[in-house]
Each structure stands twice: as structure tokens, then as C-alpha cells.
């Protein structure tokens, strides 16, 4: 292995607000302070502004003009609970739109403590070699990737190899085998504090990193100090209020901590909004096999390495993750999310939670988005490429994404490609991204978010609403149109703001039901940066982020006509409520009227 370049000494140059650019064409690194126009931005606000400023909207996402930016949120690296989310931005090879995908793991807090506001990766190497970018307090190096982690080596093994090389304490972002092959569902996999895997899942950003021949980013924060806080006393007080708001809320204590996000299987099933058999039904009979309640009982009964509750990064006090073990109690997977289990279990009809867990592990190992893959699998089942409910067949295909075989390539190319290959009209995508686990025909507000978000169909794009407009929620009936436009608009604005803070979206529950909690979030940002922001300022930030993203998409060729749900939802009623999608184009476009 050859050492390529040691470009600078970080400690001597800057201590905070570092803005690092890694040029993969020249294999040079430059570091500067964060440009003035990005001061005060973090997370999604920073990544989306940067992509809009510097990425040619019409560029090929896998070509040399695309850029990847990685940015911790505003509060990352502090002691604020649940503040360890990291945003990754680029033009998406799956959707062709701007993309922000965020993740847990250790990297966000490490980068923030090292004073790094953003790491940008641009250009493409001339040579067909994969590299590791190593970021330490002493400098940034670009090294050739060890050969044993290339050409199909899974992420679990790659983490082991890199741990041995760089030490267990380092943080990591990895391009898995799917990313090396630049498949459109490829994610970026991040090491969590236990050496397991979290993902910046949606939109194929792993393929972009793969196109730049970056196999991994290794972050060693040894020697980093704590994040500077302008008013430590105020910060501490606000953080205490915020933590209490989260912990007092039943979602943290009774819901997510015990049952994970998979608690939603039974709830959406009962509401008739759990898409099944490639979006042809809204309810299944085998919900008990795959529910969060069953997952909890199974983990508890099996014991061993199983844990019902676990945090994806240090400082998470909600702990929605878990370690799901096999029958002998040995760890299979963690971060075993509702959307994955829904996609394979309800939409694809796989009735065995264990086989779904093995598929989840395999998806993490090859580095593909578990939502896109699950929706693509169900679509492929509808198209006759895979037998309905055949978990073993799906597991084999996902494992083959490491080679990859032609069928594995097709599935990892996402739902839209699978729909075309199979000659289907029932293809559940918006802007070529698979629709997740909530059917828009029976949960209409979420449908408006799927249609209008800048990201392609994405439930997390409409997750948070600011405390001062909560009253919108009181009038919502899931099957009626009233209030839904306001709901989808407010949720997307709130989410864009929270995604910029470095906070996990699940803090939303504590702060939405408790206005004091929302104020505490703002107070923490104010105390850290010496600001006087109000709830209205956060709203303004959220709106600005959305408009920047929309601007990129417009310049990339997207129009209002792309803000539409798939047509089949307008004429195929969804049992049990037998509803169709009935918003007019003009009504949908109103979401953007702000």
C-alpha cells in the first residue's frame, strides 16, 4: 500500500469551522474556513446549499461534476441528547434530484469535535484504484484501499480489517460492494459505536462515492477537544429541559425504546395503510409474525446478544435501535427498522422475521438502501422475477449484489428500473424513488409529502412540525383532503430545520407535544453559537432549505409534473378503505405555496 499525500497539519491551521475539500482527480486536499455564506449552517442546510451552489444540476450523478458533501449538524459534538446525526449531500443517481441523506453512527460527533464543518469530495481519479481518505487532527491523507476489502468484501468484514489497521476507536464511512459497482440503491455505511452498521440510505449516494473511487473515510478524532459553547450554563439548562421533554414522552419510554420503529406494523395495518403485495392491499393477516411487539418478545425470549433497546450513537436517549439475535442468541442485525420489515414482510409477503433479519444484515453488508431494495423486491415479485414471499430467494439475490449477478444488478437498480424490466404499470415511485411504508391512499397527508418533497418519495421528508403550528394536526382525517396541504407543508418545513440541527428526527415527538421542549432545542442552538433565534427563525431556515433544493431540481429539469404520485393510485382502490388518490395537480402544487 502506498501513502499518497499528507496535505496539511490541521492543528496548526485551524481549530474550528474547517471546510475540507478532497480532490480525487489530483489527489490533493485543501482546507479552509467555512465560506462566509455557509456560516451558521449545518447538516442538511449546509449540504443542500453547497450542492445547489457547486454541483452542475444537469451533470451525470456518476460523472466528475458531481460532488459529495458530508456535514455534521449544528448541535453535533455537543452533549445535547440525540444530536449525532450526519448529513450527506450530492446529486442522486437514483432520482436525478438533489439529495440529503442522514445517518447515525460515530462520525458526526467526531467530525464536529475536530472542528470540521464539512468534508467535500470532488473530481474522479484517473486511475482505476480505490482509496481511503483518512482524517485526523494531524492531517488528511489519501491512501490506497487495502485489497482485501475490495471486489465484493462485505461491510462487516471491511470494518474489521480497517479497525485492525487504524484502531477500534476510529469512525468510518464505507462504500460497500454495491457502491463500488455504482448501483443506484447503494448507500453509504457508517460504523456505529459497537462496530456495527448505520446507513445514509436513500438516493444511491454510495454509488456517487464509489464513482469517485472512495472506498472509505476513516476518522480519527484523537486529540480533538470539545465543541466550543458560547454560553455553557444556558446550554446545560436547555439541554436538561430538552432531555426531560424527550424522556417524559411516552414515545421514548413506552414506544420506540421497547418496540423500535417496527411498532408501526400493527398500527398501520389497523389503519388500513400498510401497503401489501406491491401496493394492492392496505392490510395483511400475518402482521403478528413481523410486528414490533413480536420482535420485542423474540429478542427477550432468545436473550444472548439480543437487546431490545440500543442507541445508534453516543448520547441517544430514545434508543429506538435494537440487536436482533438468532435462535442461539447470536447477533444478526441492528437498526432493524419498520420500513425494511414492512417492505419485505408486508409488501413482499415474507412471513418469517428471522429471514427478514438475515436479509437486513445482507443489505447492510453489501451496502444498499433497505427501503429501496425492499420496494424493488416486492415490485419484482409482482413482475414475476421472484416468487411472492420467498425470503431465501431474496437473501440470495441480495448477497449476489456483491458480485453482482444480472438479477442482483436489476434489483439494486431500484424500483423504477425493476418496474420497467417487468413491464409493469404498478410501480410505486415518485421521482424514481420507492414509496415507503405508508400508503398515500389511506394516509393522504403523507402522500402529499411523497409527491412534493425535493427528495423523491421519502417519509422522513415530512417528519417534524414546529411547535407553534401544531394546531394544524387537530383537524386531520386521514382519508379527507381538509388540512392535508397545510400539514404536508408544515411537516416538510419543520423537518428541513431539524435535519439541519444534527438532531435525530425522533426528537420530534418530545418537542411537538411539548412546546417547552421545542424552545429548549432552539435555546441549545442559541447557547452554542451565541444567537437569539426564535421558532420563526427555524421556520424561515426550513423554508429556505426547501427552496434551495427546489431551485436545484428546477435547474436539473424537474417541474411540477414530477410532483405526482404514480397514476395507478388514482384508479386502483386500496382495501380495506377502498380509497384512491384524489388530489388534483393544482391542490398538490399548493404545498409549495409559501
Amino acid at each position, binding site marked *: 500500500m502506498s501513502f499518497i499525500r499528507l496535505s496539511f497539519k490541521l492543528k496548526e491551521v485551524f481549530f474550528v469551522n474547517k471546510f475540507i475539500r478532497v480532490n480525487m482527480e489530483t489527489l490533493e486536499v485543501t482546507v479552509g474556513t467555512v465560506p462566509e455564506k455557509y456560516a451558521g449552517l449545518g447538516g442538511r442546510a449546509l449540504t443542500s446549499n453547497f450542492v445547489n451552489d457547486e454541483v452542475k444540476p444537469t451533470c451525470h450523478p456518476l460523472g466528475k461534476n458531481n460532488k459529495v458533501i458530508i456535514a455534521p449538524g449544528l448541535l453535533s459534538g455537543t452533549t445535547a441528547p440525540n444530536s449525532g446525526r450526519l448529513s450527506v449531500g450530492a446529486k442522486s443517481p437514483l432520482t436525478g434530484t438533489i439529495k440529503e441523506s442522514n445517518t447515525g453512527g460515530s462520525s458526526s460527533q467526531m467530525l464536529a469535535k475536530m472542528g470540521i464543518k464539512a468534508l467535500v469530495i470532488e473530481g474522479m481519479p484517473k486511475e482505476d484504484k480505490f482509496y481511503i481518505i483518512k482524517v485526523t487532527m494531524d492531517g488528511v491523507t489519501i491512501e490506497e484501499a487495502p485489497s482485501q476489502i475490495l471486489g465484493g468484501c462485505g461491510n462487516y468484514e471491511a470494518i474489521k480489517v480497517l479497525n485492525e489497521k487504524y484502531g477500534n476507536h476510529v469512525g468510518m464511512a464505507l462504500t460497500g460492494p454495491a457502491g463500488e459497482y455504482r448501483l443506484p440503491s447503494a448507500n453509504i455505511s457508517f460504523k456505529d459505536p459497537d462496530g456495527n452498521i448505520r446507513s445514509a440510505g436513500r438516493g444511491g449516494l454510495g454509488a456517487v462515492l464509489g464513482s469517485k473511487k472512495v472506498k472509505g473515510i476513516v476518522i480519527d478524532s484523537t486529540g480533538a477537544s470539545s465543541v466550543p459553547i458560547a454560553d455553557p450554563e444556558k446550554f446545560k439548562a436547555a439541554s436538561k429541559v430538552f432531555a426531560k421533554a424527550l424522556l417524559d414522552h*411516552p*414515545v421514548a*419510554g*413506552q*414506544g*420506540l425504546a*421497547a*418496540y423500535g*420503529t417496527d*411498532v*408501526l406494523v*400493527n*398500527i*398501520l395495518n*389497523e*389503519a*388500513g*395503510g400498510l401497503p401489501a403485495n406491491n401496493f394492492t392491499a392496505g*392490510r395483511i393477516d400475518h402482521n*403478528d409474525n413481523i*410486528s414490533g*411487539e413480536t420482535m420485542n*418478545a423474540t429478542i427477550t425470549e432468545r436473550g444472548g446478544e439480543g437487546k431490545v433497546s440500543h442507541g445508534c450513537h453516543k448520547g441517544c436517549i430514545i434508543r*429506538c435501535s435494537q440487536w436482533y439475535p438468532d435462535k442461539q442468541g447470536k447477533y444478526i442485525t441492528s437498526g432493524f427498522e419498520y420500513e425494511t420489515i414492512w417492505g419485505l414482510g408486508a409488501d413482499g409477503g415474507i412471513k418469517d422475521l428471522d429471514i427478514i433479519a438475515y436479509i437486513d444484515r445482507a443489505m447492510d453488508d453489501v451496502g444498499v438502501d433497505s427501503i429501496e431494495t425492499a420496494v424493488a423486491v416486492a415490485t419484482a415479485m409482482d413482475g414475476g422475477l421472484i416468487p411472492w414471499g420467498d425470503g431465501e430467494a431474496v437473501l440470495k439475490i441480495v448477497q449476489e449484489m456483491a458480485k453482482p449477478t444480472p438479477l442482483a444488478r436489476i434489483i439494486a437498480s431500484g424500483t423504477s428500473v425493476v418496474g420497467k424490466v417487468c413491464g409493469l404499470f404498478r410501480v410505486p415511485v415518485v421521482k424514481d424513488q420507492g414509496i415507503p411504508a*405508508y400508503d398515500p391512499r389511506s*394516509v*393522504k*397527508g*403523507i402522500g402529499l409529502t411523497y409527491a412534493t418533497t425535493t427528495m423523491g418519495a421519502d*417519509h422522513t421528508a*415530512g*417528519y*417534524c*412540525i414546529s411547535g407553534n403550528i*401544531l*394546531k*394544524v*394536526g*387537530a*383537524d*386531520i*382525517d*386521514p382519508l379527507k383532503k381538509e388540512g392535508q396541504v397545510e*400539514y404536508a407543508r408544515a*411537516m416538510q418545513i419543520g423537518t428541513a430545520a431539524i435535519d439541519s440541527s444534527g438532531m435525530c428526527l*425522533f426528537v*420530534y*415527538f418530545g418537542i411537538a*407535544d*411539548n412546546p417547552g421542549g421545542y424552545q429548549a432545542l432552539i435555546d441549545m442552538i442559541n447557547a452554542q453559537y451565541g444567537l437569539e433565534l426564535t421558532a420563526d427563525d427555524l421556520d424561515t431556515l426550513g423554508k429556505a432549505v426547501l427552496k434551495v433544493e427546489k431551485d436545484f431540481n428546477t435547474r436539473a429539469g424537474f417541474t411540477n409534473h414530477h410532483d405526482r404520485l404514480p397514476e395507478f393510485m388514482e384508479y386502483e382502490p386500496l382495501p*380495506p*378503505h377502498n380509497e384512491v388518490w384524489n388530489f388534483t395537480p393544482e391542490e398538490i402544487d399548493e404545498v409549495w405555496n409559501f
Partner: protein
Amino acid sequence: MTKSGTFDPMTDEKKQLEIRGFLQLDAFLKKKYGTMPVFYEIDGPITGIELAKELGIKREDIEVIFVNGFVQEVNYTLNPGDRMAFLPPGCPGPYRIALGFYGKNQDNAANFKIQRKDSK
């Protein structure tokens, strides 16, 4: 037929409720009745609160109920033949708004201290 047990559609359909419990009530009902869903005979209309009392479910363990696929407030009246479910506090996500919880839990001070629409 006892008050709860296996569903016989030929004889029981009109007199029974089909009951589910979510979160901790899933384990509670499975333990108590050995099955999920529970088919439970009623003589006539009954409210969610009354039913909960009969089943030994604590009031504070219910945020809203589902009735035939729709979210309802806890004192909503159930009729024989209905499919219903008890949902404790703890459902995450924007679904708390999108499914209509916020319109149905406003008398339920034990769960979420949000302001009533008419209290402003």
C-alpha cells in the same frame, strides 16, 4: 361460547367484537386470552372505556382506539361485529397527526398535554 375464545363466524359474528391490543397490550391480551385477536362477546353497544374496564386494561394505557380501521377517541361506542384495537401512548412519527390522533385524543389529558382547539 364463553365471553372470549375462538371465533365461529356462523354463530358469533353478530355478537362479537374482534379486539387487538398494541404495544404492551399485545402481550397483556395474549397472556390473558391466549390469542390475538381476541373475540369477545357483547350484548350491545359498549364504549371503549367500558370495554377496557371489562378486560382489565388501565385507562392510562390507552391513547386512542381503532374502530374498523379508523382512529377514534377512547369513549367511542363500539357495536357487535366491530373490529377494534387499543393503542397505548407511544406511537411514533408523523402518523400521530396523519392518522388523526390529534383530533381524537384532546380530551385525554393523561396522554398528551396539547391544547384543546376551543381552549384558546
